[in-house]
């Protein structure tokens, strides 16, 4: 596992050199998008940003801390319903909703994480899946709080007190883009710190980290709480974008898509964002054109591609090397 990761980092190094220029172009395109694309595509892009944030949350656990998760939609749900309930009863202030959603998800994760982060690897994967699906079921059944299957619709958010509510797709998109940009930027800084280093170390060899005197369990718990906070913020942004949340927004498939995005394009936060964009573009732009109504099947193919990419490329590389050897001998 560690050796494979090392070769992966080495393979990514040439790509990193062109990354700043590419990132700048991508950012400029992202900001200019509302003036270029039509309203439907922009609303799809808003959702893609929400999934990108959720994928970053999954990446923090899966790619950095080595805790593969299939349940991040649980915290998307907690954050989303918190934002929706606040939006209906207290305030339509967007930043306040995001803050409350982040806090609610982090507090829930602090309690759940105390149990869940005792598990590692496959057991963690299974338990996170259970947490995600049980939260989904709770959201469906607790009709008094969540509105059950009918969901909750909310008034449009305002960016600051006295501002006009965000109702146009372009405005909503720019708000979601700005917020997710700030969150992903802070997460990037956090992961470059000592904290990120210890998480990576714990992922590759936890006993050594413990032997060096770091309380690895507490670090993993903190990573779980932070990841949940990010997912909670994603939930608030989802509510801001759709002005509606229902249990169908927080299914097992959403968690699975976040994990897929995290592993699809390299184990970095930017890779997770790219994966999320690819997934949402496939589901909401390609599927209606090519195979209307069969989004699950096409997403299934994406899952299979992500799983088999490594063995297939390995096999191709192997074959090419062997051919060269034969050429040398013959």
């Amino acid at each position, binding site marked *: 596992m560690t050796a494979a990761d090392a070769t992966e980092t080495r393979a990514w190094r040439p790509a990193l050199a062109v990354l700043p220029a590419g990132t700048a172009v991508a950012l400029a395109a992202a900001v200019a998008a509302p003036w270029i694309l039509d309203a439907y595509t922009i609303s799809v892009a808003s959702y893609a940003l929400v999934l990108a944030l959720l994928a970053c949350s999954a990446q923090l656990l899966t790619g950095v801390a080595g805790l593969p998760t299939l349940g991040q939609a649980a915290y998307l749900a907690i954050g989303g319903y918190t934002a929706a309930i606040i939006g209906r009863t207290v305030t339509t202030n967007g930043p306040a909703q995001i803050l409350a959603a982040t806090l609610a998800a982090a507090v829930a994760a602090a309690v759940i994480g105390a149990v869940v982060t005792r598990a590692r*690897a496959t057991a963690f994967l299974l338990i996170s899946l259970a947490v995600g699906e049980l939260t989904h079921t709770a959201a469906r059944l607790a009709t008094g709080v969540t509105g059950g299957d009918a969901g909750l619709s909310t008034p449009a958010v305002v960016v600051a007190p006295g501002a006009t509510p965000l109702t146009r797709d372009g405005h909503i998109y720019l708000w979601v883009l700005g917020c997710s940009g700030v969150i992903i930027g802070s997460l990037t800084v956090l992961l470059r710190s000592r904290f990120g280093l210890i998480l990576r170390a714990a992922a590759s060899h936890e006993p050594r980290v413990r032997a060096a005197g770091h309380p690895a369990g507490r670090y993993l718990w903190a990573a779980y709480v932070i990841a949940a906070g990010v997912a909670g913020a994603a939930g608030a942004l989802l509510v801001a974008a759709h002005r509606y949340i229902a249990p169908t927004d927080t299914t097992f498939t959403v968690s699975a898509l976040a994990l897929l995005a995290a592993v699809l394009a390299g184990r970095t936060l930017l890779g997770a964002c790219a994966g999320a964009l690819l997934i949402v573009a496939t589901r909401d732009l390609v599927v209606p054109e090519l195979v209307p109504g069969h989004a699950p099947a096409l997403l299934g193919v994406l899952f299979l591609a992500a799983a088999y990419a490594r063995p297939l490329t390995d096999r191709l590389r192997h074959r090419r090397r062997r051919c060269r050897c034969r050429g040398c001998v013959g």
Partner: protein
Amino acid sequence: MAGQLIIAVDGLAFGLLLFAVAAGLTLTLGAADTLQLSHGTLYLAGAYLGWWLGSGNWAGFVASAALGGVVAAAAGGGLALALRPLRGHLHQALATVGVGLILTDVLASVFGAEPQSVDPPPGLTGSVHVFGHDYPIYRLLLIAVGAALALALHLVVARSRAGILVRATAADADMVAVAGVDPRRVQWSVMAAGAGLAVVAGVLGAPVLGPAPGLDHTVLVLSLIIVVIGGHASIRGALLAALVVGQVQTSAAAVWPAAAPFLLFATLAVALLAQTGVRARRIRTT
């Protein structure tokens, strides 16, 4: 009192049904070292098969159970071969989620997306008088079949040569290879048996837990909880966990449905804390 007893009997039927699904998953994870996340979709496929062929007639019921079991076993064996190049549970999880999504799409295209209700075969539709309450015959039969299955699985795994090989492969696949048996053969047999069991459970369980969209995830999560509580490749552990989960689900559903997920999570948390406690103590003593 009698009402509580009826709920307890209901929980027993549900728990034994879940055991039939989770036993396959336990063996797949334990002996074949494979994380099979399309297991719930297999149950759903079985339930749709039971609705399509076997609703209210004996011939269709028996045929769908037998045919579904055989076809699913072949598919399970094929899946074991297909998953062989993948390294690690994460990639297996991704691949099987993909297989599950494709299968769900096929099922939705063929059978539609509405929940269906399935009638038991004729003669099993009525109810009998138990402890002053009317109780459906089919559920009592399900308890009998589930108990027989649990006993048979326990005997096979604990006593037969095949069971010894399965347990040996779960403990140390390399040693099995040294002893002259190809562990990969054991692994694909176990996955075939697990897939077959899931589909047969779907056909048998359809009159109780009928086909509906989203059922695949419910069944998957309940059986994963059973696998985590029950422990590594343990049929007895899976049976105990399935009975507990069955009781928790039905008694919560009768009193306060919204509390069921929280109760299930609490059960999982208690089991997890107990397990990590035991492991920590073991490490300290050795």
